[in-house]
């Protein structure tokens, strides 16, 4: 125990601090007015919309980010349709047809594969009838206009819009707010025994910036154009304005991002702003501001508001992970903000920060020559300086939550908790110096590449360390396979696959082959989709009882778990094969134009797409369970999982102010199965000895 914590005993608990000697002098006035003000009930708006209570804000974040997750999923389903069945109309009936005929086709395919393996004649060509013709008045056409989905057939530029928005929404509007903001807001103050976040009003502002930034981004799909690229596809960019959302990928590399989504009137600032890419940039600035407020708040809360006795090393690992994540957001996002501002200048004020001299579009020079020249690479550096820390922002909260779940359900302390804490800091630090491994093919020289390859390889070491510690925790455990635990255990190997496939990508030589193929898509989806999403599901099932006072149904949980895990693998595993065959990303036709090179692997498109549609169906039990259990779930006590951390020592759901009694922490976060203790869990707040002292050296 460090002496810092000793001194914090001076203030008993946040909930009663105004009467402690330390603050009494200047907080006295607060006491005086206390009765008059403190107990007034906020109305509907104050309670649900403009709430400053961290639990409410956490739930707001949860619902919003899950909805964005669903939107992102819908978008990618439309894309998957185009990849597997390019040129075919997307209608409910067609989807139903493809999904139902898939099993028999799959069996047939396996037969052909087996034949081919043993050298018999085989047939890799799909026996499609004449492709269905565009259909009038499909739902897709109605929702996304004739320009984007004429007759239900996806246009390439609309595919690009969906791609950019899928990436952006999933990363910035779904997973970050889910892992960092939703779980963090809900659990961090509870876990450290604080009454609320340090700056409640900032917290509310943060959520609203996020919400409006996100809605703004979605809204950009419906920005009008003037007819767009003609069907000839040759109408020059200077005249044709497509409208619609950003379409330069979630990375928004200039010059493409500056040239695409042209404004109706380049001389008008308003018109320049009312284009998909500009709105993307403005929305990003809002989101960055939101996460800036959030991260300041998290760090301040963790540093300032830990309850007496909650020393640094007694903090749950989840809180550590959130702390590191907050630092990553705090320090990595601003350079992207700078890049966003500069790109916005390029689009609106027609500067050339990222536009080199002498660009030619459709054989017509397009930039003001001799502006002094800008650099497209500058943007890439600024983007990936954020981009790489960002991927750890995606994963760390989930790793933290999974650690909680594993400790609780294996009924034993986390193995090597201190090592994990060190590991997560090293990970956070190193993530700032690996960014250029996304840029190996931009003309990088030997020395620079050597530096970034080395750092990238080094960063895999703490990851392996953390994952190994989780794994070893299971040794000697008494594993309860609750639903959260199922998801947490699934997380480990799935993240493992994603992480391990990062290793060939870390070296510049294999990247000569693998760059921007579906191998990369497979790599990062394994970490963010099967990895982070399963971990997040686990966290939802885990903390749901605390938030609502009821448990989600176990039966539905199982019905959700097994198909989800199976189908996630069906969706993403074949992507490695496709990538290894040379299939590149961001093609609306899934590489059909170079099918001679790709050969048999094109077939996997349909397998993946059908699996993805089935994956959507597999979420129905979850969505149902989620809402049903709010009202009809099994009622639970304060501590249904018999867990040790502080959040389980308050009613479910916790009242405003979080705790009904002063919180004093006596021991580390994971004192399960302590020898000699009557129960197999020894809560942090239960008065008594600290096993760490008693079993010193034996641990």
């Amino acid at each position: 125990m460090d002496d810092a914590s000793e001194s914090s005993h001076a203030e008993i608990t946040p909930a009663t601090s105004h009467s402690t000697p330390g603050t009494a002098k200047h907080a006295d006035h607060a006491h005086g007015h206390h009765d008059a003000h403190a107990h007034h009930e906020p109305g509907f708006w104050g309670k649900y919309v403009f709430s400053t209570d961290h639990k409410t804000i956490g739930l707001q974040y949860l619902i919003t980010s899950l909805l964005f997750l669903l939107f992102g999923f819908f978008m990618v389903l439309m894309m998957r349709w185009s990849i597997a069945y390019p040129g075919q109309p997307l209608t409910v009936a067609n989807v139903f047809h493809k999904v139902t005929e898939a099993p028999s086709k799959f069996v047939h395919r396996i037969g052909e594969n087996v034949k081919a393996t043993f050298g018999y004649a085989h047939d890799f060509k799909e026996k499609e009838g004449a492709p269905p013709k565009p259909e009038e008045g499909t739902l897709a056409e109605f929702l996304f206009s004739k320009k984007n989905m004429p007759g239900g057939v996806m246009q390439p530029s609309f595919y690009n819009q969906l791609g950019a928005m899928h990436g952006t929404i999933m990363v910035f509007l779904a997973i970050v707010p889910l892992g960092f903001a939703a779980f963090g807001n809900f659990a961090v103050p509870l876990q450290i025994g604080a009454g609320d976040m340090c700056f409640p009003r900032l917290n509310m502002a943060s959520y609203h910036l996020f919400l409006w930034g996100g809605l703004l981004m979605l809204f950009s799909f419906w920005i009008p154009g003037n007819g767009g690229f003609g069907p000839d596809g040759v109408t020059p960019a200077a005249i044709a304005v497509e409208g619609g959302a950003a379409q330069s990928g979630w990375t928004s590399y200039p010059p493409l991002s500056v040239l695409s989504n042209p404004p109706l009137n380049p001389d008008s600032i308003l018109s320049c702003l009312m284009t998909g890419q500009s709105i993307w940039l403005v929305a990003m600035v809002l989101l960055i501001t939101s996460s800036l407020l959030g991260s300041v708040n998290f760090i301040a809360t963790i540093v300032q508001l830990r309850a007496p006795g909650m020393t640094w090393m007694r903090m749950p690992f989840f809180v550590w992970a959130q702390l590191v994540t907050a630092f990553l957001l705090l320090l990595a996002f601003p350079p992207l903000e700078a890049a966003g501002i500069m790109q916005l200048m390029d689009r609106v004020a027609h500067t050339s920060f990222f536009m080199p001299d002498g660009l030619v579009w459709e054989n017509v020079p397009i930039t003001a020559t001799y502006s002094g020249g800008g650099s497209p690479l500058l943007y890439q550096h600024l983007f990936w300086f954020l981009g790489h820390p960002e991927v750890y922002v995606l994963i760390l909260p989930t790793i933290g939550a999974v650690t909680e779940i594993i400790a609780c359900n294996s009924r034993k302390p986390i193995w090597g908790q201190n090592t994990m804490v060190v590991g997560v800091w090293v990970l956070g630090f190193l993530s700032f110096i690996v960014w250029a491994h996304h840029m190996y093919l931009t003309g990088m020289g030997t020395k620079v590449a050597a530096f970034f390859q080395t750092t990238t390889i080094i960063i895999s070491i703490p990851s392996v360390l953390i994952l190994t510690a989780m794994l070893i925790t299971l040794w000697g455990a008494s594993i309860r396979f609750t639903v959260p635990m199922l998801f947490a255990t699934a997380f480990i190997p799935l993240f493992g696959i994603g992480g391990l496939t990062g290793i060939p990508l870390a070296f510049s030589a294999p990247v000569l082959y693998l760059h921007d193929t579906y191998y990369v898509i497979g790599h990062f989806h394994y970490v963010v989709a099967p990895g982070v999403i399963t971990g997040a599901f686990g966290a939802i099932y885990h903390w749901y009882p605390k938030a609502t006072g009821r448990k989600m149904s176990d039966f539905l949980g199982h019905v959700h778990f097994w198909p989800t895990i199976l189908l996630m693998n069906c969706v993403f595993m074949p992507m490695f094969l496709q990538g290894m065959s040379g299939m590149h990303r961001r093609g609306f036709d899934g590489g059909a134009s170079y099918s001679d090179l790709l050969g048999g692997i094109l077939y996997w498109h349909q397998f993946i797409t059908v699996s993805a549609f089935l994956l959507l169906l597999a979420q129905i039990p979850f969505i149902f369970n989620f809402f049903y259990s709010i009202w009809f779930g099994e009622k639970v006590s304060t501590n249904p999982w018999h867990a040790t951390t502080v959040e389980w020592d308050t009613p479910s759901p916790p009242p405003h102010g979080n705790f009904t009694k002063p919180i004093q922490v006596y021991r580390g976060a994971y004192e399960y199965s302590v020898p000699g203790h009557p129960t197999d869990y020894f809560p942090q707040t239960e008065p008594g000895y600290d096993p760490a002292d008693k079993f010193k050296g034996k641990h």
Partner: protein
Amino acid sequence: MAHSPSSHDHAHDAGHDHEQHELIPYIVKPRPDSGLYNGKLGIWLFLASEVMLFGGLFSSYIFLRLGAEHWPYQEILDIPLGLFNTAVLICSSITMVMAWAAVKRRRFGSFLTPGTYQFYMALTIGCAAIFLGVKSKEYNDKFVHYGVFIKKAAFAKYEGALHEANAGTKEYTTIEAYEITGHLHGTVDRKKITEQKFLEIIPDAKKGGHGHGGDAPKEVTVKPHGGGGSSDHGTPIKIDTEDIVRWGNFIPKYSTFFAIYFTMTGLHALHIIGGMLVLTYLATFGANLYKENPEWLANRVEVTGLFWHFVDLVWIFLFPVLYLL
């Protein structure tokens, strides 16, 4: 928004404040182990993020400049005005500290009583206003100032007239051109000028400055030359558009230097404006807190002061980088 570090973490209505005060300790008193009260830690974190923001922009400046084909000569910005503004900001930082010290010594006073809190706050806000005023004058100058790059091959045509006018002429080797700067005479409309096929410029006089680094332009002496018509000081010189490589006023669009100049100073000015709003609040409505809890007010002033010093510091970097280097 993000620029009002001290107003968002505290409540406006008293009722809410007190409720928060119960839930959240260390709003006024520092936490013993961290030695900081909440707002101070918050502002330090916020400033760390700001350092990364401006750090990103300064790095971009270096990156762009190293890769640029050419970069304008240094006298293109008004150094005396910049220097004046630097001094103004430093003064405002000092008065900011004085304001904080005044609350600490419980000298609230009024706007007109020297040596008191409100007095120093008024001075600080005044300095900020002067800064912005000077800055907008500088901006305005840029909009009406033009640079014309004359093709080397055609330069002889104008040499005589330029010499008469004692025009400062800069040579750019990479783009094979001479630049003269000045104010346009007659129309400034790009379309009209393209149609009439010439523009008229009253050139700036020679300054005798020197270039700096890499391919920086150097001032060249214009030889008297037969040909071009003679012109008095201040007389416009007519230049045919076909002899021009490019021309434009000193706005972001026409030069990467001005692009980064406007972006960085603009963002800095936004910070000044944000700071002014907070200062004004603290000097007026926010000052009511003094009666209830002067220490709390002192904290808010300190936090705002930290932000203010940071904004000052950014300018202290901006000035040499943009004006002098």
